[in-house]
């Protein structure tokens, strides 16, 4: 049975906002199901970037001229847009980075170097993307701290009893994703933060896979750090966000040195700029920030509850269809999931499936999804991952399964 949307949601109307979707790939209309890797950009984002370079391009904060004032105003207004979007208390707590990975590296290097010592522990879940594992291993190597994995059960759900047991006063920081990129598991963020805070640990939440799907409120969540990438939120690549609790950011040493992040420089000593500039060495990605703000404005102009409901309906429909494919095994069957269908088909390799789907105009990702530990746990080299966004249709999912049938005939 085909799922349906609630009244009022018009997917064709939203699709018209994303010009890239309207093209042929290998002779077939494109079915883009790689949204967990990156999302497509609405025309409003493309226009904002073109407008910036056409009319406003200039360096920010320093120029003695009108263009620089204009660029600075738009750049700082973008920061305000992001702060409001995640309900941060102030724009000083919104630090521009290149993406979620750089945001995590910043916290690991800066907060970690000032706060970790031998014997300390960093907990990460076994579901993490390499970006939320490796930066912690790097700072652990330097400080003598240890990275400990919180186990995940066969469905891809974090073992909360084990998490509670692992939490003790040695744990200085807990880092986990709000949604798993490889499996789609939605983690119980608020509860995990409450438990971690109870032993005095700080918490970093990787929101890269969640931010596109529903509204995020960092104050209600009560996290210490929250990170995400612009390009997974319908914005440009190269721009990302680190949100941090003000008192933590104030105490942290700078991450990189350079222009913008200083107050005064002399060979006798240098003093650093205030937040957020202390962490923003060098000319920032001005167009990226403006493009990201345009993406947020676009989302704010939509009925986000309707978008979420549509994505949930797509996942339910795809999950139901997957159950009818002989030999197909869904990888990641947690009770709460967001917009990701990972699977393997017995007797085939994910890369074969990916290549043959591409021939039929269907874009998926195959492989370990930069989450090798969880793939090792399942004993598989990787999966085929179809990941959905609100501009996908039920017809896209029908096309995926028709194409998969053809793939099965060719491979098995």
């Amino acid at each position, binding site marked *: 049975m085909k799922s349906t949307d609630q009244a009022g949601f018009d997917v064709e109307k939203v699709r018209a906002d994303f010009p890239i979707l309207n093209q042929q790939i*290998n002779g077939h209309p494109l079915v883009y199901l790689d949204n967990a890797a990156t999302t497509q950009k609405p025309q409003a984002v493309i226009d904002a970037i073109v407008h910036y370079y056409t009319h406003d391009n200039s360096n920010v904060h320093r120029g003695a001229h009108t263009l620089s004032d204009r660029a600075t105003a738009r750049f700082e207004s973008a920061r305000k847009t992001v702060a409001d979007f995640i309900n941060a208390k102030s724009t000083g707590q919104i630090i521009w980075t290149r993406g979620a990975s750089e945001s995590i590296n910043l916290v690991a290097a800066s907060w970690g170097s000032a706060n970790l010592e031998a014997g300390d522990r960093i907990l990460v879940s076994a579901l993490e993307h390499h970006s939320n594992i490796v930066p912690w291993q790097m700072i652990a190597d330097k400080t003598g701290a240890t990275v400990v994995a919180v186990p995940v059960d066969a469905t891809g759900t974090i073992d909360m009893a084990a998490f509670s047991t692992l939490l003790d006063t040695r744990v200085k920081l807990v880092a986990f994703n709000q949604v798993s990129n490889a499996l789609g598991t939605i983690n119980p963020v608020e509860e995990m933060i409450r438990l971690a805070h109870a032993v005095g640990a700080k918490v970093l939440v990787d929101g890269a896979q969640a931010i596109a799907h529903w509204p995020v409120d960092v104050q209600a969540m009560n996290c210490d750090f929250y990170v995400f990438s612009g390009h997974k939120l319908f914005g440009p690549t190269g721009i990302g966000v680190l949100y941090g609790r003000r008192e933590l950011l104030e105490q942290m040493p700078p991450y990189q040195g350079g222009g913008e992040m200083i107050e005064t420089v002399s060979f006798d000593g240098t003093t650093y700029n205030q937040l957020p500039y202390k962490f923003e060495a060098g000319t920032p990605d001005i167009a990226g920030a403006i493009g990201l703000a345009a993406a947020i404005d676009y989302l704010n102009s939509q009925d986000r509850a309707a978008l979420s409901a549509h994505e949930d309906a797509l996942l339910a429909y795809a999950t139901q269809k997957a159950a009818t494919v002989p030999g197909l095994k869904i990888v990641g069957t947690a009770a709460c999931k967001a917009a990701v269908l990972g699977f393997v088909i017995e007797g*085939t*390799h*994910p*890369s*074969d499936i990916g*290549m*043959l789907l591409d*021939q039929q105009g269907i874009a998926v990702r*195959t*492989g370990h999804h930069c989450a090798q530990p969880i793939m090792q746990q399942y004993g598989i*080299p*990787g999966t085929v991952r179809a990941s959905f966004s609100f501009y996908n249709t039920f017809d896209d999912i029908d096309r995926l399964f028709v194409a998969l049938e*053809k793939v099965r005939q*060719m*491979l098995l």
Partner: protein
Amino acid sequence: MKTFGLDITSADIIDTLSFFDSWDDRYRYIIDLGKELPPMADAEHTDANLIRGCQSKVWLSSESREGRLYFNVDSDAFIVKGLLAIVMAAYNTKTPAEIRSFDIQGFFESIDLMRHLSPTRGSGLQAMVARIQSIAA
């Protein structure tokens, strides 16, 4: 069993692939080529023979006899194995000098599908070519 490089040459591959009209026939041919490769012994599936950086597992072993290089290749993915077979058509049974002078990128360019797949890190093709060229160096 046919020997790649002798009975199935790079020119044969280009000819045969140009003959197919549809993508699925081309891919079926490539998958079938992979199935024609001689099986690699379990003992050769070692870490040393594994070529890293590919999405699927790719193994390569080689031996030199009377100045010619003989390769054994395997992959756990059907299409990649077929692509490896195509590389074998170019390189297997050849002398190091022949391998060094063969224009492999030109060969890939002349096969539409290889042109698209060869830059992809995940296919492992370039890593395989680099390993063979270092053996022939």
